[in-house]
């Protein structure tokens, strides 16, 4: 299978602060890649580069055959990539002034020119799929955190993305709601969605990931199948990190 993401020698700085260092990373179509690492190690920055929410400084980045140049690149490439890449944020980022249905309908109508009736049908189907089919006409603030995050996933899926990025999708949730969101993600993975997931949910990573990547201070220092990374980490930094998070 072909690579949907190809990153070579990518470097990214915020001013003087060198945040991503010589990142080489390929993601195959259908693969689930989980990215772990300490706070501030650059996990969010890395996945935000992939849909152009952050610009990078040097290296190459190709997403689904579309090159995205350093320093933002062309607006056209950005637009193409963003249509094909869905993103789910830690803070959900639902649109509070729109109903759940309208949240989901917005992009298909504005970007793909889908008709209102079609977009509304599709919104209902997607809500059904994430297990909240009866909430379409509520507003986001009338839903629980877990429900909001599931709406956010449905909203991203409405664009029929080829790749889904998740940036700590369960970190802002009350513990009892983490499971329902992970269930939806597990299901997506089972259906063959290509996913890059930043998470601290090690159980989920072990179960769902095809590959786990450990980032330390902006560098990929360990990478491999979950069992390999979790049970026999090669790098001592990975060992230290895992013993810290797994002891909790």
């Amino acid at each position, binding site marked *: 299978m072909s690579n949907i993401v190809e990153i070579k020698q990518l470097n990214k700085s915020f001013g003087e602060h060198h945040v991503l260092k010589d990142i080489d990373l390929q993601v195959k179509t259908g693969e689930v890649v989980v990215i772990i690492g300490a706070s501030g190690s650059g996990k969010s920055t890395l996945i935000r580069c992939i*849909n*152009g*929410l952050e610009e990078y400084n040097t290296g190459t980045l190709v997403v689904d055959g579309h090159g995205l140049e350093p320093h933002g690149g062309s607006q056209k490439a950005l*637009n193409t990539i*963003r*249509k094909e*890449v*869905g*993103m789910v*944020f830690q*803070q959900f*980022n*639902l*649109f*509070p*002034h729109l109903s759940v249905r309208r949240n989901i309908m*917005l*992009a298909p109508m*504005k*970007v793909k020119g889908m008709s209102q009736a079609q977009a509304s049908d599709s919104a209902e189907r997607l809500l059904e799929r994430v297990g909240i089919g009866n909430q379409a006409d509520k*507003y986001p*603030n009338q839903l629980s955190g877990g429900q909001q995050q599931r709406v*956010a996933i449905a*909203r*991203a899926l409405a*664009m029929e993305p080829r790749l889904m990025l998740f940036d700590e999708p369960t970190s802002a949730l009350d513990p009892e709601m983490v499971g329902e969101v992970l269930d939806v993600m597990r299901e997506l993975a089972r259906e063959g969605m290509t996913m890059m997931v930043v998470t601290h949910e090690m159980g989920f990573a072990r179960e769902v990931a095809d590959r786990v990547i450990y980032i330390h201070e902006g560098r990929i220092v360990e990478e491999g199948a979950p069992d390999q990374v979790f049970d026999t980490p090669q790098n001592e930094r990975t060992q230290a990190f895992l013993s810290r998070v797994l002891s909790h």
Partner: protein
Amino acid sequence: MESTFSFNWQAAIDAIPFLLKGAPYTLMISFGGLLAGFVLGILFGLLSLNRRWYLRWPATAYIEIFRGTPILVQVLFIFYGLPDLLGGPIEPVTAAIAAIALNSGAYISEVVRGGVQSIAKGQREAGLSLGLSRTQTFWTIIWPQALRRMIPPLGNQAIVSIKDTSLFSVIGVGELVRQGQVYIANTFTAFEVYFVVAIMYLIITLSLSLLLRLFERRGINAV
């Protein structure tokens, strides 16, 4: 000196019909000026947020100039100063509307800027990541939310501007205060007349406050 003053209700009531002739001017100048000020405010408020400095700077200059000088000086400048430049006189009412428009426009620019900046960064990122363009993201996601937050400060500015129209008696616009001055010149009942004038302003501003409060509540329920 002993005061023998007592409030003359009859004089106050007698003054009402004459004073009321000023109300349409006060309302028209306020409404026309604020409407234009709102347009200016959106325009310059958004320009002041633009990434390009050559759009941002002129907007900032406009805002600073009209916030940093008294509206009285602004209207005197427009009414007495501009005709030299234009080569012809300006109607007092036109000058008054222009002064409210330019002055409130500067303050409303700041309201617009603050409203837009108050919307969390994640909203923009969510829009962009869904494939919406920057323009679509702004007008369908940021602006509707910002507008809702702008209602209270806009109401505040409307009240300030309504009261500012009282200054335009100096260029002879027949608004509420001017009508009062003319009436007093004949009757010498300053206390009663200004009392009635004050009540008239209060009726206008309180109605507006009430209207905005209803509007705001409706807006919040919709979220």
